[in-house]
């Protein structure tokens, strides 16, 4: 009964979306106020219906209602509750519903908190948001219905893929989608502005919080995915330049560029048409990602062919959703003339360079991801584009970007003093060089990018700290005054400092983990030990254990160094109830400067076990750095100036109330 209601709710949501997509848009063009005002209740109603449908689906999973097809395919009655719930979005249909839910959440938020928006802009924005909804709701209802039923209902389910039964991957889709789909509202704002023919500082102000929120959650979502891979896949890797990963990375890169160029629009009334273009492209990359992942166009050898109808539908969605706005852009953008003049060597200039580098980096990732497909379709040959390509291109491009990031904040608007900035960064330069020298001394035969990565990471870290110290004049006056200055420093500035700092820490971590990782593999009998980098891993025992929905071989390692016991590690090899393949649970001991990573494999039949251990330096810095970046985003979001939008004059507000 409830799944039927959920299905019906989706249909009702579609009807609301159709109304919301058409009437307010026409109303804005013709000045019909009631039609424009329809956008708000329509958005809220759409949200209500979709939430209902989502909760209905979640209930089906939580109660193991196997009459619903996807519950049978992706759940099992003995799973822990959290994985029953996360199974809701651990499949194609359910994750689509999550997509639409977040689309409608953002629409509803703009409807509720957009009281200060000019009515035409608000109506058009909500209309466009609804158009996207219509596309995805149709896609769901026509090709990927989450509420499809099985009759008769099976007695037991086929179990959620064991790889997904992990807390990191349970939360990864919601966070990722908040980011991905969050950029849809920026997209809608941009297209509305194009129709309006006006982009100004006020527009940039309204858009900024949505941009920040999406960027922050997308950062979190991507890192959660990496963290999951590190913990779950068993060989200490955390990024593979896989098409699916790249699909989430590209919107992040372009979204970062957007965040920075919107700043120039807001502060200096310049870079308008570029910012509009970026707004369209960021969500465009999100849609591209959806297409790449769900259409089955990029698959590996010996993979199953996915449903071609779905692929065609998403492609059509992609083509219309990006094609129409970009055509509008080609027509309207030339009239968006900027006002602020600035010298090339200025903060605006630095932000232009930032955008240039980020855009080229995004194009590089896109090229690498699509090239095998392109080559295959034109010549029939297949190649692989993996890490080495990206490091040589993307990695090299990242270096000047990171160098620039420390200099930019020192530059003034309109005209900046580069020499002065570099003088203040001498300390950063010395630290950076020192770090690079240390890197070469530790491992002189590694890749060149290792000491370079460390150099730019440390440069950015120290440079950002120096800028912060200078801004609050950390060494001038008494502590009370210093504290006062620190308190009154705008939150957005703290946000910038934290975000840049976080990136620096993460880059240092990535460099260390990639360049200085070491491993050891052996067959061990209980009682034997294995050493790596001065750490001794002694296999004490291997026991069989039973978890909530799996059986496992659990090994007990005692890790010691110079005779002192540092840690006990318990890696497992799990066999879940239904899925035939075993999964590994690595045991990781995270220390500030390195991770110790132990994995247990198959028994050799003679009482011994295959064991693999890793020593991976600075991995924790990656997660920590990402966390700091997210904190930076949230700090900026909490800045009152961005939440309020454009201010309303007291007189007008009173007149309106009268």
């Amino acid at each position, binding site marked *: 009964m409830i799944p039927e209601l959920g299905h019906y709710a989706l249909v009702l949501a579609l009807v609301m979306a159709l109304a919301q997509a058409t009437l307010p848009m026409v109303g804005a063009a013709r000045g019909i106020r009631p039609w424009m005002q329809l956008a708000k209740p329509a958005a809220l109603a759409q949200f209500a219906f979709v939430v209902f449908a989502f909760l209905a689906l979640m209930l089906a999973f939580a109660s193991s209602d196997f009459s619903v097809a996807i519950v049978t395919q992706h759940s099992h009655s003995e799973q822990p509750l959290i994985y029953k719930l996360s199974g809701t979005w651990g499949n194609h249909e359910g994750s689509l519903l999550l997509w639409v839910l977040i689309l409608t959440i953002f629409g509803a938020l703009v409807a509720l908190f957009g009281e200060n928006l000019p009515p035409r802009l608000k109506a058009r924005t909500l209309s466009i948001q609804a158009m996207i909804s219509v596309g995805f709701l149709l896609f769901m209802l026509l090709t990927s219905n989450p509420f499809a039923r099985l009759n008769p209902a099976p007695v037991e389910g086929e179990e959620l893929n064991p790889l997904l039964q992990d807390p990191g991957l349970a939360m990864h889709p919601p966070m990722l989608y908040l980011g991905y789909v969050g950029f849809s509202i920026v997209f809608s704002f941009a297209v509305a502005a194009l129709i309006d023919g006006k982009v100004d500082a006020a527009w940039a102000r309204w858009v900024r919080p949505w941009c920040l929120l999406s960027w922050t959650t997308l950062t979190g979502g991507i890192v959660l995915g990496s963290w999951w891979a590190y913990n779950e896949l068993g060989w200490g890797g955390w990024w593979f330049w896989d098409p699916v990963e790249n699909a989430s990375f590209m919107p992040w890169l372009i979204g970062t560029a957007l965040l920075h160029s919107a700043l120039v629009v807001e502060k200096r009334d310049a870079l308008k*048409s570029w910012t509009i*273009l970026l707004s*369209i*492209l960021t969500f*465009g990359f999100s849609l591209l990602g959806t*297409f790449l992942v769900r*259409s*089955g*166009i990029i*698959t590996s*050898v*010996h*993979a*199953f*062919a996915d449903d*071609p109808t779905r*692929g*065609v539908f998403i*492609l059509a969605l*992609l*083509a219309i959703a*990006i*094609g129409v706005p*970009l*055509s509008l*852009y*080609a027509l309207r*953008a*030339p009239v968006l003339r900027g006002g602020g003049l600035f010298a090339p060597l200025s903060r605006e200039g630095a932000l232009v360079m930032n955008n240039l580098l980020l855009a080229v980096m995004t194009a590089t990732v896109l090229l690498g991801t*699509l090239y095998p*497909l*392109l080559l295959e*379709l034109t010549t*029939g*040959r*297949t190649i692989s584009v993996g890490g080495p390509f990206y490091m040589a291109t993307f990695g090299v491009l990242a270096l000047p970007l990171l160098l620039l990031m420390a200099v930019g904040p020192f530059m003034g608007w309109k005209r900046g003093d580069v020499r002065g900035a570099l003088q203040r960064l001498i300390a950063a330069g010395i630290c950076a060089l020192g770090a690079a020298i240390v890197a070469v001394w530790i491992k002189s035969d590694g890749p060149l990018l290792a000491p370079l990565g460390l150099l730019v990471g440390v440069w950015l870290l120290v440079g950002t700290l120096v800028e912060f110290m200078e801004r609050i004049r950390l060494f001038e006056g008494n502590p009370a005054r210093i504290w006062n200055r620190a308190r009154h420093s705008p939150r957005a500035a703290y946000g910038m400092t934290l975000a840049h700092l976080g990136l620096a820490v993460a880059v240092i971590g990535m460099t260390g983990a990639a360049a200085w990782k070491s491993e050891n593999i052996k067959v061990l009998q209980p009682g034997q030990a294995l050493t790596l980098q001065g750490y001794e891993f002694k296999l004490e025992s291997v026991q069989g254990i039973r978890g909530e929905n799996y059986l496992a071989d659990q090994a007990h390692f005692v890790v010691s160094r110079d005779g002192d016991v540092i840690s006990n590690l318990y890696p497992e090899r799990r066999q879940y109830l239904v899925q035939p393949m075993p999964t590994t649970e690595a045991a990781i001991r995270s220390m500030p400067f390195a991770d110790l990573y132990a994995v247990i494999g198959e028994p050799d039949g003679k009482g011994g076990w295959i064991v693999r251990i890793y020593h991976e330096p600075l991995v924790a810095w990656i997660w920590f750095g990402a966390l700091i970046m997210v904190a930076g985003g949230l700090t900026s979001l909490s800045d009152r100036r961005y939440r309020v939008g454009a201010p309303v004059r007291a007189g007008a507000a009173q007149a309106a109330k009268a």
Partner: protein
Amino acid sequence: MRRLIFLLPIAIVAVLVALFWIGLDPKRDKSALPSALVGKPAPAVDLAGLSDGAPRLTLAQFKGQLVAINFFASWCLPCRAEHPLLKQITAEFGVPVIGIAWKDKPEDSRAFLAELGDPYVATGTDQNGRTGIDFGITGVPETFLIGADGTVVYRFAGPLSPDGLREQLAPAIAEAKQ
């Protein structure tokens, strides 16, 4: 000129959409890695026979005629599924099929053939798997078509199906015969 710049994004998107449209063509065979050996001379084969007294298997014996090589193993489930179709290759198209057991114990391969029938004109055992890698197989079962001049004409990866036989292998055989 300035206007043209603004057309660049939509132009690029149009190209990409066209690319994707072609890529979505259901007839595109995404599952098969094209064999790098097609058109090149087949690697040398020199393997022990399946039973103890059996003669060694070499490809040279078959020079001058069109022949198929089927890599299989007793532990491979899809091999069981495709087995009945192997007789058809000889019966319907007149192409003899050589069987190479890949990474399989000879006694297990013998039992497999005893149970399901022996469609092969000759068999060999590739216990260390090296011959398979020489042919660039990606797993078992895989079937190769070797021309009369000893070059690799075609490679079918995965288990044969009636459709696969009819739509892919048959035309390849017909072409090779010309």
